[in-house]
């Protein structure tokens, strides 16, 4: 079995995996980072979204072995201790989550969506979230949360 080395949430990790292992299963099963979820099998729902080298990637759609040497951030790596990332905080403040299942992917996508951009309109945010499905919230409060999270990140609270 090939050996995969990567940096996940700032920690160097290494493991032998079957070549067919998807990144999401490497994270969930090998590293026990179960915050990243699997909601579909066609790369449509975005529940498995993580950051690979700073960009949002659907981790069900990449093999772990493809990402040897990559820097990966999952939902578990966002908060600083008990201090939430501004985007996480914005989701909590705006009731941008209900069952919480799509939430990790939604937050990871949202951060990538707003990074380096200012004053995104509602329609830009909605279009930018097109790859993440939520069945609970009707997106109303997610859109509000992303806007608020973007503003907070712009205000310098972001990382």
């Amino acid at each position, binding site marked *: 079995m090939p050996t995969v080395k990567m940096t996940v949430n700032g920690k160097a990790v290494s493991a032998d995996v*079957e070549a067919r292992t998807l990144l999401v299963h490497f994270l969930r099963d090998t590293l026990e980072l179960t915050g990243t*979820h699997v909601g579909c099998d066609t790369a449509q729902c975005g529940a498995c979204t993580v950051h690979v080298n700073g960009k949002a990637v659907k981790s069900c759609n990449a093999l772990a072995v493809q990402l040897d040497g990559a820097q990966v951030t999952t939902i578990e790596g966002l908060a600083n201790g008990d201090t939430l990332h501004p985007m996480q905080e914005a989701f909590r403040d705006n009731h941008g989550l209900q*069952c919480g*299942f799509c939430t990790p992917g939604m937050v990871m996508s949202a951060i990538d969506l707003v990074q380096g951009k200012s004053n995104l309109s509602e329609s830009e945010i909605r279009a930018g979230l*097109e790859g993440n499905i939520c*069945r*609970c919230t009707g*997106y109303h409060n997610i859109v509000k949360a992303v806007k608020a999270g973007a503003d907070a990140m712009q205000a310098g609270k972001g990382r």
Partner: protein
Amino acid sequence: MAADSGTATGIGASPKRKEDFRFLTGRGTYTDDINRPGQTYAYILRSPHAHAEIVKIDTAKAKGMPGVAAIFTGADYDKGGVPCGWQIHSKDGSPMIEPPHFPLCKDRVRHVGDQVALVIANSIAEARDAAEEIDVTYKELPAIVSTGAADKAGAAQVWPDAKNNTCFDWHIGDKAAVDAAFAKAHHVTKLDLINQRLAPNAMEPRAAVGDYDRATGEYTLYTTSQNPHVIRLLMGAFVLQIPEHKLRVVAPDVGGGFGSKIFHYSEEALVTWASEKVRRPVKWTSDRSEAFLSDAQGRDHVSHAELALDKDGKFIALRVNTIANMGAYLSTFAPCVPTYLSATLLAGVYTTPVIYAEVKAVFTNTVAVDAYRGAGRPETTYLLERLVEKAARETGIDRVELRRRNFIPKTAFPYQTPVALQYDSGDYEATLDLALKMGGWADFENRRAEAQKRGKLRGIGISTYIEACGIAPSAVVGSLGARAGLYECGQVRVHPTGSVTVFTGTHSHGQGHETTFAQLVSDTLGVPFESVEVSHGDTNKIPFGMGTYGSRSLAVGGSAIVKAMDKIIAKAKRIAAHLMEASVADIDFKNGEFTVKGTDKKVSFGQVALTAYVPHNYPITELEPGLEETAFYDPLNFTYPGGTHICEVEIDPETGVTQVVNFTAVDDIGRVINPMIVEGQVHGGVVQGIGQALLENCAYDQETGQLLTGSYMDYTMPRADDVPSIKVATHSTMCTHNPLGSKGVGEVGAIGSPPAVINAVLDALRPVGVTDISMPATPHKVWQAIQSAGKAKAAE
């Protein structure tokens, strides 16, 4: 019950949710996150055919594959079938046809996805690899999937005992009175409608882990359920014959349900059964494609409706005929959805004096159909509000005026409908007036004209609805065929230091009970919000419960908690009276303090709690130590949320694309504990309704019975850019028969919205001659309707 306490966490306030920190940091524990030592993985080999005989299953090669622990087929399965929880009787008094539903098919498969073999291996990859090597010989049979054609001559027969594929042929109401009223009608409006099949699609796929403990003989099932005690009852008593004291069911964090996780699924029984066979824990996790083939689906009604009006536009009678598709097997609550959850709502918000409905349930070679958010009430609301809209167009009476003319007046409550229900409260004029104002009804024509200049067709639609939820009085549902009671249990444990744990038989899978119930308890007992923990989802922790569905958690489960708190306060008052050397009758309790009338004596709730557990100075001969109470609450009636939804759409006639540009929901849901959570529930429900109206459809190939919409590539889930922001308001009248006054909010969004959307689409398309369209009003369908209407006009 205290009104808004004025604090940031009391009843009526919107504190941030207690649940959110764990969900936002990836620390939620969903079923698939649970791994037991020595765990194996199950893969279920499913039928590729809609209808076929199983001639032979050869598992020899598969059993020799690496990592395989066991392979089971129908021949190996030695326990019971999955039961149905509700029995309906036909018009002639005969009971419904109840076919057996074994977790592994014995000799015949009856839908694509039916369960043929269970493969258990050391890893899921090995289980899948082994399943590939199972050789099943099928003899294919003709299949029937069409709801409308299932009972017709020549249709393939799903079950030998169900002639013409009929499960039951039921009716309600006074047929003779309805016929008489129709005979003297001034106008009759007729409408044929399809309420299409939907896939619920909670974002968390179902999963189950069975764990048998050889040392104690106890079984534990971790499962994605909305009601773990119901699963324990159904699976333990009926399927596997495991007594309750040897079976623990845990529904941990659950990623959405919308009804689809109410039912006892055979995979739950399989992993539990197999864990004992292989002497190791067994885990099964559905993937999304599998979910489309195995999660109970929703709706799927074909109806014909007729409304009789007098010369003043008063509704004088309603007649409805519905065929409801059950799928291949009867899921847990399936028979009650088109009958007692649907036809009993046919009065809607109107004074229609006589109603008659016939409902025929049919079997087809499709996935089972059962309750999906709203369960029967969206179907009825869609039927009524499309029918009323059409009646308004035909009679020339303004559509808002026609509704007002027929509203049950607010002075008429309690109001007995001709179809069994007695509504307790409501004010339909008030929700209508507020929605008209918020939705900009009065100046809509200006917006239509402006859109026209841009080449767009703009329309506005309305729906004034009622629903029955907070299910339900046990005696009533028992008389209607329910095989269970529908009360709820609440347990309040006050700890020695005054913090509180609340155990509820309801289950939260997005609704935020840990927050709402903590607000209720904190406000009532006067303990800090942070000191209240709400526990649910584990049959070993919670005394009992019927779970969460039918918007019942606050109205029924919350009422049980109130009843338990009443007992807590009554006992605490006796302790306080002892401490203050006063008479119990003179003790008042407010804001967490016990006082003696007419004195300045007081003790805090915390002091009383400590005394209860450290009873040095205590009326020990009269009172037990401790401060913990349990209550079961059985509601006296259903609750009846209602309201008005207004939708505004803009259609591009060149492409047929419909954009929802405004949506307003004004709902009467009784007392609101947390407005933030309430609004979130409405947002989500409305978008599921918009999804039904414009996007979603479970399509089966009529010949082969293959599901054509088996993934998110084909089944159109609403995405963020498909829907607008939603204007939400509540205008509440109190429920008169539960201690909270709450009615329920979980389903109103999905119930009120679909007809508002379709009425808006038809309003937009009226100028181009389109008078009817079916759900989902996809761009293709809208474009075709415009083209057909154009051709018809040209031919005139």
